């Protein structure tokens, strides 16, 4: 089951090849604060230059969803348009819900009979042995892991879906992502395989660039404990992204690139 999920999300990488470099992948909820006991949130999801402005590629693969108790939840009405996908989440229990898009793929190249070959798109770690032929030399591999998580809360915020798994680049929220307001700094920690991501670069971009002249983005560096403190001058939807690199923990001699993305709704206090 897990393996299928990984394979399927790896396809997302293949479907939007340039996305991870040139374009920013985002999922934007219509709201993150629900006060009714039986609420719905609708999402837009796409990749584009300006975050939350759909003008390039839709998200092609349905994300996963998790209820406040950690159980898997259902994404409703997933549909893909020309520029963006939409889907809904039915918040049938109080607490914090998570929508997650995970990708785990392998890219790279090798030399065979004097020719350079690239790994086919959609390659996953488990398919690797069958893909690289015997006699290949100069094998260069890169494991690419992406984690895009968006949280929405019905009633009071809860923590079960925020718990990190200890795998890859993850958020360890000191400030609950659904409890961010202007005038109060938010503190977010990051870990790689459960260890503090000291010195990690974190980018925070405010949506709506189209309606102002400045970009409005903050580049922050995590401290020794892997934490960043973020101030939000203006309310709005913010896109937070961090990336880390290193050596693959599971594929021998492979480099590793990890990214973490979330969307924060910042309300005016």
């Amino acid at each position: 089951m897990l393996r299928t999920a990984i394979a399927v999300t790896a396809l997302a990488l293949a479907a939007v090849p340039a996305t991870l470099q040139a374009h920013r992948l985002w999922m934007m909820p219509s709201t993150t604060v629900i006060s009714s006991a039986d609420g719905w949130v609708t999402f837009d999801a796409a990749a584009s230059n300006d975050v939350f402005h759909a003008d390039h590629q839709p998200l092609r693969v349905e994300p996963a969803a998790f209820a406040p108790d950690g159980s898997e939840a259902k994404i409703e009405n997933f549909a893909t348009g020309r520029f963006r996908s939409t889907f809904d989440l039915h918040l049938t229990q109080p607490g914090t819900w998570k929508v997650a898009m995970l990708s785990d793929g392998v890219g790279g190249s090798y030399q065979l009979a004097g020719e350079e070959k690239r790994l086919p798109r959609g390659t996953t770690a488990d398919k690797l042995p069958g893909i690289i032929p015997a006699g290949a030399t100069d094998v260069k591999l890169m494991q690419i892991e992406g984690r895009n998580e968006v949280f929405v809360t019905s009633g009071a915020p809860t923590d079960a879906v925020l718990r990190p798994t200890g795998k890859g680049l993850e958020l360890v929220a000191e400030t609950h992502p659904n409890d961010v307001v202007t005038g109060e700094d938010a503190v977010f920690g990051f870990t790689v395989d459960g260890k503090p991501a000291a010195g990690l670069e974190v980018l925070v971009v405010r949506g709506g660039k189209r309606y102002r002249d400045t970009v409005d983005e903050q580049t922050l560096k995590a401290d020794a404990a892997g934490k960043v403190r973020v101030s939000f001058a203006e309310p709005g939807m913010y896109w937070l992204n961090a990336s880390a690199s290193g050596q693959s923990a599971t594929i021998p001699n492979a480099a590793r690139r990890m990214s973490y993305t979330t969307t924060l709704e910042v309300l005016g206090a």
Partner: protein
Amino acid sequence: MQVRHQLLLTGLPMLAVATPAIAQTAQVQLTLPRLKVAEYNRPYVAIWLEKPGMPARTLQIWYDFDMAKNEGTKWLGDVRSWWRASGRTMRFPADGVTGATRAPGKHMVRVPTGQLAPGQYVLAIEAAREVGGREVVRVPFSWPPKPGQTFAASGTSELGAVALAFTR
């Protein structure tokens, strides 16, 4: 049990000396301005008490509490400062706290605040209107007040003058 009861009884007069009154009633006067707008809906209004280090306490929340299936709760989150401070941990309707929305004009609301420890407090009033704006007015006050003292503040858009006085 007996001892505790006696302690409480004898403790009361002492407490009464330290803080002039015990069970307090706050008298809140607030104005909902009449607004000339294309579509007017009565605002949702929350009144709550804040003190650093103490959980915020909701005194009143006015909303469409009598809609079928509790549908009025859908927009409680629009009263967003209150929702974050206190509302999101409550169940609705809330006894003695929930009320119907009110028309523009002056309103006098009497709300029991219970016992208050001496210190600095803030009475917060927030109004949020469907297809309209939102405003929070905060009235800082110190407890216990001087006799006859009232505390006042004013909003500029969704709320008008706000005054706070206490009675026993």
